[in-house]
């Protein structure tokens, strides 16, 4: 009887597809690395590149009415603010500086100056409410500086909603065709102005 044939298992080279899961994992790591560095509070605005929402609002002090149509033909910085907003107070010096930029129109929209708790069931469009909001708005700007060429009252917040406002302050740049080119949520900082806003202003001109 011949000796039983014994075999040893053959050494197997690792097939190349074994690295596919590793590659996929590294791909996911890359996604995470990029994603984790982003600020989840910053919501990209769907308005960028689209015309500013149509609206018509009364000017503070009753000097008339301003409509979005008037954006055409000029470069406008639209700032949504309120006297109860701490960030608005912080950024106001920057707005004052920007108001001295030649060729830049400054439009302030005083968003919901009288908040729900203050209104306590009253109609925000009532004469009494408007009067109260007007007085506060004017007093605040008197003290902090007249940064706005045009100051508008958005008493019920509908125009703000059309702009996609979710917190104050918010700043938009609207070009000569009335198209929104830039949005910043939160108080403006010198960095944002230097790195994002000023280059745009130069580019648009």
């Amino acid at each position, binding site marked *: 009887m011949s000796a039983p044939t014994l075999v040893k298992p053959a050494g197997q080279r690792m097939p190349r597809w074994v690295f596919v899961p590793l590659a996929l994992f590294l791909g996911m790591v890359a996604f995470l690395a990029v994603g984790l560095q982003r600020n*989840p509070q910053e919501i990209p605005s769907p308005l960028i590149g689209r015309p500013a929402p149509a609206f018509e609002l009364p000017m503070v002090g009753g000097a008339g009415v301003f409509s979005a149509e008037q954006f055409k033909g000029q470069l406008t910085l639209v700032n949504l603010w309120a006297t109860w907003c701490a960030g608005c107070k912080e950024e106001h010096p920057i707005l004052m500086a920007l108001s001295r930029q030649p060729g830049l129109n400054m439009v302030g929209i005083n968003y919901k100056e009288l908040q729900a708790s203050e209104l306590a069931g009253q109609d925000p469009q009532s004469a009494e409410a408007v009067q109260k909001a007007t007085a506060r708005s004017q007093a605040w700007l008197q003290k902090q500086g007249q940064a706005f060429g045009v100051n508008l009252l958005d008493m019920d*917040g509908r125009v703000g909603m059309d702009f996609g406002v979710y917190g104050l302050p918010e700043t938009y740049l609207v070009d000569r065709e009335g198209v929104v080119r830039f949005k910043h949520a939160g108080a403006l900082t010198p960095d944002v102005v230097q790195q994002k806003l000023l280059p745009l202003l130069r580019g648009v001109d």
Partner: protein
Amino acid sequence: MTDFHMALRALVRAWLPIGMAVMATGVGAASPGLPVNAIQASPLAQSVTGPAPAAVPAVQAVANVQSEAPMTSAVKARWDHIAAELRCLVCQNESLASSNAELAVDLRREVRGLIEQGQSDADIRTFLVRRYGDFVLYKPEVKPVTWLLWFGPFVLLLGALAVALRLMRRSPAAPEPLTDSERERARQLLES
């Protein structure tokens, strides 16, 4: 067949039906038209998502008097269905139905107005997405940009299964024969 192959075959056999079920659920969740997505309207969902706006104390000034009255049951059903799918952008982990942020209150009033005007769910979603972007929806729309998000996991699962099956089916390579010295040594070991 080695233990490893048997274990792998058992694993694949167990995961195949589970994978199918997950895929079917995923397709169901991705298609907004399916009735399963109306589960939001169940009493359980209501208790989770909080009271409807009609229960919110009327400190809100409303230009539209209609909104102060309680909602009809038809409107309420539609409201429950859609409000839980919408994100509050101020308190971003809360739904529009349950958040107490002032913007949420305003948006609830707006959405209720749209429902009462007869706008469809799709119209309402469009209204909000046009202003706030896709982030306002808890369920991102299934469009080319989000295909990876919706289908990626299932594609990965199927890929993994395919690899596992191929691994199973591959027959082991024929072993090399022993050299003479190795055979001699083996014979000595066996006969000892």
